[in-house]
């Protein structure tokens, strides 16, 4: 393995910025976040980076490494070509705060627009419910989300077209799916998904699923079933016919 590597890091703020080169020693077993920390400690103490657990569980250190949305703590240097500069940029879909830190607060506001969990009354007198294991398994995957927002970052509807006001993005479609498919839930989120949350904007290119560090099958298991429910409720020709009658 190389003992030196070049990191080309975007530095700047809401007013703009550019890439700066940092040459730093690297050791076996390091991830990109380790290299960023070393650059911070030795060359650029004011370099801004948000991080926390360093184990792919908190979703704080999202960035774009050689153009790909990734967690810096889960990107091993041994998987990168260190003969070339490693380009590290902040996520593009959100406004920059400083250097690698972006303002992801839009996500928290968008999440609040989704109708909350509304369980049916308890099944038993002691206040407990009964569920089928298969129904529990279906939503379990969605609960792995760590809210790193890499799926939001890669999604062209947000990234290229900036439809933040009309489309909640893959993360929140996963969240809506987790609630909608919950075996105890009684709320109907389908009209909101169609009208307010812009599910129709998603044209299932699976980019989000490909960048998910928790390997949630976002497109196939969350978004497509929701799209099917929207179609079922709003575009079923037989139902339309029956409504006319």
């Amino acid at each position, binding site marked *: 393995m190389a003992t030196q590597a070049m990191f080309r890091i975007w530095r700047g703020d809401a007013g703009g910025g550019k890439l700066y080169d940092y040459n730093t020693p690297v050791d*076996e077993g390091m991830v990109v976040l380790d290299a960023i920390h070393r650059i911070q400690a030795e060359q650029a103490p004011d370099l801004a*980076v948000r991080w926390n657990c360093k184990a792919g569980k908190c979703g704080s250190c999202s960035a774009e490494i050689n153009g790909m949305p990734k967690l810096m703590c*889960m990107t091993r240097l041994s998987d990168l070509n260190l003969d070339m500069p490693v380009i590290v940029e902040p996520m593009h879909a959100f406004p920059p705060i400083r250097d690698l830190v972006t303002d992801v607060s839009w996500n928290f506001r968008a999440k609040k627009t989704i109708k909350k969990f509304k369980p049916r009354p308890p099944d038993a007198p002691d206040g407990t419910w009964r569920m089928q294991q298969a129904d529990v398994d279906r939503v379990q995957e969605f609960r792995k989300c760590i809210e790193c927002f890499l799926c939001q970052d890669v999604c062209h509807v947000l990234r290229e077209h900036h439809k933040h006001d009309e489309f909640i993005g893959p993360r929140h479609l996963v969240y809506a799916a987790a609630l909608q498919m919950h075996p105890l839930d009684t709320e109907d989120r389908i009209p909101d998904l169609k009208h307010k949350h812009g599910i129709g904007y998603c044209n299932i290119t699976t980019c989000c699923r490909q960048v998910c560090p928790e390997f949630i099958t976002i497109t196939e298991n969350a978004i497509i079933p929701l799209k099917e429910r929207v179609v079922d409720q709003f575009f079923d020709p037989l139902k339309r016919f029956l409504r006319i009658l």
Partner: protein
Amino acid sequence: MECTVLSLLLDSGRIAGAFGYDREKGHFILWSAKSIVVATGGIGRAFKITSNSWEYTGDGHALAYRAGAELLDMEFVQFHPTGMVWPISVQGILVTEGVRGEGGVLRNSEGRRFMFDDIPELYKEQTADSEEEGWRYTQGDKNARRPPELLTRDHVARCINREVKAGRGSPHGGVYLDIAWIKDRIKDGAEHIKRKLPSMYHQFKQLAEIDITQVPMEVGPTTHYMMGGIRVDGDTQASSVPGLYAAGEAAAGLHGANRLGGNSLSDLLVFGRRAGQFAAAFAKENGAAAVDQSQVDATAKAALKPFDIGPSGENPYQIQYELQEFMQALVGIVRVESEMQDAAERVTKLRTKSERAGIANHRQYNNGWHTAMDLPNLLDVSEAITRAALMRKESRGAQFREDYPNKDAEWGKYNIVVRRGADGEIVTEKRPVQPLPAELKQVIEEMK
């Protein structure tokens, strides 16, 4: 919003508010408050190898200490026996006790289950004397006794430490934790492991490219939990400063000298709620306190000092690394008088150095500045840990002293309190352990 508190404000001895900054903009924030609950967690970042995140810099401990609150049991730092040791990017990350609970065993480089070699007299009765019995325990046999791998965390951590020091460690300076072997005992063993330990399976698969259903893990001790903290009343969570409450890891007392696995969560649920209730009641019963602008100004001035010094000053990251290095080496799992004296002197020197910490650029999301602001807290808790550990001349719970390897019944009658003296100096004193309330005594009797 990401915020950091720099000081607790007082009005004639009681809480009046807090002063700090937000990371995003670097703006100062003043909170007026009739009461405050400290819930800042632990101090793991004072050590080099830790399972804790960067935030665990002992802020709450140090803020309360500087506001005049007493700290208790600061010598008791828990080192969890099993953290990851390789690759370096994940050094210290926790490997759950559940691995051993499911039948995982510890072996040295010679393949020996070394935990059978050192079972403390006190636990002999409750510990399996054969591998077979230990295995039956992990599979739910109520008649079997627990395997020695599940002895208290301090003991297992020390045994691992000893194996590594004796040259019987794994290639990256740990020992082996093997769960893969249970495939010999369980049909579809690999699937069983994945089902029982899904997060551990993924953690090693993703972070270390190791399939734990096939090969052993490499593990070693990691700084995990602080038993010591702000001295609080057992019922109300009130500290010795009126209006200041503490909950969770920042508070002391509940876990004595050594926390048992799982007890932190129940601590939070029960005493976190109580802290909130009693803090709210205090706020209702007491009017607003006045914020003393001079305290705010002094804190702001100190906070901006690194910018006045500028980039030619001391590098805050290097100061933090230096502290972590020697705390790990000198006040770690195995302690001895001379080394801790050395550490205490180094803390003092490092404090002087940290006052010359300098930072370039402005306050907006400046990690260097944040690190500089963490230093006084790290230094305060490190000094408290070292002083208390020096004072307790015995081994008990998480504190092991090579020069006093045994428990001393006399010392069992005392807690150590650390507080700030009138001239800002650190004071450590012995305080008799509070007697158990009668109703709790009764509960314990009934459980016997």
